[in-house]
């Protein structure tokens, strides 16, 4: 994430590490209403009252404020994988590095992703949940990760797996380390660091006369003024998840007891839980039924097996899936033992097939309903996990429950959750609770997006995120010839569902690059350019 949530921002001090996950300390009643920020005096190099109030800025306003302005045709905000994939497309389409700036507080594009995968129990040798041909470092998806792994490791197994998946084997998925290595190579190839400007993004405002101003708070001491501005015709917003929040009862417990040790989020460092389990008998309660819950569960089960531990796991599902589910025979998803099973976070065809085509035509409530049908928490069916869970159920150290928690209290050092089940209230005592639900905060919790919603004219889509066109242009944000685009998690709910995935970011990048080509910003990547550029990619030559 690029910016801190409103209300918690310390603009002059950049976070010491990729603080992607920003937690809502006190969920605001009305997130859109914010305390008015006093403006700085003119000439101070900071935002003046007039600038803070105005939806549209003139060149004169910035001059009066004393904020230096840099002209660049396209600015991408975020600097994570969303920015990376889009910029990669544009570089392949022939855009030179001096025509793009990437504003970010990240040192490298996959920094946040690497942090999140690591803490949620996917270290480099483990495999992420992504398709073989979804390569953010290779817009063609060829060679696929499976083919690359087969060649470099001289093994046929990855190729065999993609051949027989998902019928006779689990879906092939790449190792996290391979993904990062590929991104690093591509980052150097496209000259990412030449385009990267480090700092905290503050806001984007329309410019009178067309285009936009982006305000950046650079690293402390790196510039003479507190703020610098970028004047751009095209702006791309890929600031990632607005923030994650805890389940309300867990948040309340943490606040009341000031206990940030026994109740933890799977998206933050919680290695101490596994360390404790290695020294004594512990009961761990898991909340959530998605991929992160599966990962945490796997870690607990692996450690149990590896070190001969006696860890007990109580897994609480809010929605317990006991069998295949869906409205009819054509729309039935597999499920069992609490989990809904699906290879990836959406049915595969949203990334290019039938569901992508259907969704593209749906509006309003119909689209929201379709999202609901294929959404919901799910996790892949992996044979190893199944065997481990079965062993746990058979031997009584892994128990599943269905219900919600009303109250939590401390009792003799244990956290007791009062679980409301269909059979009545059941008390469950645990040493640790790991929140794997990954609830996402509202987009208005993100400072840049909140400002955008307030001043640019953008709206929300049927599921409450940023409303984008099929080309990923932000509706209502046009400014003369200037266009603002958005991709990634903030656009979930649009005409294309799989936005917050590697392949989804590439779908968005392709739409954006093609739209920019229609507007004359770059060349459209045609057949011959694509082949030539792929050959350059294969030889690790600059685009």
């Amino acid at each position, binding site marked *: 994430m690029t910016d801190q949530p409103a209300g918690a921002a310390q603009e002059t001090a950049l976070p010491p590490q990729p603080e992607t996950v920003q937690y809502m300390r006190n969920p605001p009643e009305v997130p859109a209403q914010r305390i008015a920020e006093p403006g700085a005096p003119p000439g101070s190099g900071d935002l003046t009252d007039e600038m803070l109030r105005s939806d549209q800025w003139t060149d004169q306003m910035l001059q009066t404020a004393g904020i230096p302005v840099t002209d660049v045709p396209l600015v991408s905000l975020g600097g994570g994988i969303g920015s990376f994939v889009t910029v990669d497309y544009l570089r392949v389409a022939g855009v030179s590095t001096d025509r793009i700036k990437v504003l970010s507080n990240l040192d490298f594009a996959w920094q946040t992703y690497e942090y999140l995968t690591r803490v949620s129990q996917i270290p480099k040798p483990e495999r992420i949940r992504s398709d073989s*041909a979804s390569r953010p470092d290779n*817009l*063609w*998806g*060829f*060679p*696929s990760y499976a*083919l690359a792994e087969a060649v470099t490791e001289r093994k046929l197994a990855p190729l065999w797996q*993609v*051949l*027989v*998946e*998902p*019928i*006779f084997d689990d879906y092939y998925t790449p190792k996290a380390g391979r993904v990062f290595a590929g991104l690093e190579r591509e980052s150097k190839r496209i000259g990412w660091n030449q385009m990267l400007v480090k700092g905290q993004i503050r806001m984007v405002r329309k410019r009178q006369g067309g285009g936009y101003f982006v305000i950046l708070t650079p690293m402390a001491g790196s510039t003479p003024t507190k703020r610098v501005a970028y004047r751009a015709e095209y702006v791309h917003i890929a600031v990632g998840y607005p923030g994650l929040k805890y389940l309300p009862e867990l948040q309340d417990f943490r606040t009341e007891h000031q206990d940030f040790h026994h109740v933890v989020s799977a998206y933050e460092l919680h290695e101490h839980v596994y360390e404790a389990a290695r020294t004594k008998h512990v009961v761990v309660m898991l909340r959530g039924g998605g991929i992160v819950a599966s990962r945490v569960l796997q870690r607990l089960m692996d450690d149990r097996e590896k070190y001969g531990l006696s860890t007990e796991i109580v897994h609480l599902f809010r929605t317990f899936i006991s069998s295949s589910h*869906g409205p009819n*025979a*054509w*729309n*039935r*998803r*597999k499920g069992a033992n609490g989990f809904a099973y*699906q*290879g990836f976070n959406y*049915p*595969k*065809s949203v*990334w*290019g*097939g*039938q*569901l*992508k*085509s259907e969704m593209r035509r749906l509006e309003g409530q119909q689209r929201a309903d379709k999202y609901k049908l294929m959404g919901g928490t799910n996790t892949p069916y992996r044979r190893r996990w199944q065997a481990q869970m079965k062993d746990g159920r058979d031997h009584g150290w892994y128990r599943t429950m269905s219900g919600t928690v009303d109250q939590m209290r401390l009792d003799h050092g244990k956290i007791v959750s009062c679980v409301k089940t269909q059979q009545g209230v059941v008390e469950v005592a645990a040493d640790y609770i790991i929140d794997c639900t990954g609830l996402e905060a509202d987009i208005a919790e993100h400072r840049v997006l909140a400002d955008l919603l307030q001043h640019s004219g953008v709206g929300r889509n049927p599921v409450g995120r940023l409303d984008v066109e099929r080309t990923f242009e932000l509706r209502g944000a046009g400014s003369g010839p200037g266009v603002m685009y958005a991709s990634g998690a903030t656009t979930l709910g649009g005409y294309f569902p799989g936005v917050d995935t590697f392949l989804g970011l*590439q*779908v968005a990048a*392709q739409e954006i690059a093609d739209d920019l080509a229609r507007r004359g910003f770059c060349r459209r*990547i045609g*057949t011959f350019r*694509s*082949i030539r550029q*792929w050959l350059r990619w294969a030889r690790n030559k600059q685009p």
Partner: protein
Amino acid sequence: MLPTLGGRIQTRLFLLAVVGGIVTLIVGPLLPLSVPLHVVYRDTFVILAAVAVIGIAWECLYHFLMQWRWEKDWPTLFGLLTAIPEGLLIWFLLKKNAIPGITGAVTWQAYVIDFGAVWLAVWLVANGPMRVPYIRWRFHGGRVV
């Protein structure tokens, strides 16, 4: 590639014409047939055309079967194994003289080599290299245009 019905048909026609055509040209002289090469080419290209035309009906069937899959996808293995029913049907039609334009006698050995080589090449190209010249193909359900 995750197909739509239109995309399936377009991909089949395009790949059979381009990749299938090239493979047929290469394989023709190598086939164990004792007829002049121009007869071999005529017969093998007629077979190729039959695979394309009859394949449109097959694609409709595959699309129908795909509706029972939650993911609405068509696994890689299916794309390979469908060679068996399709190959058997064309062979059956050949033996019944139901494919117009065949002049020579196509032996089963020659048929297996020809059909198998074309199918394998088309399947391999569809599962990777096709994405290099056509970057939009995989995101558009397999549509070429």
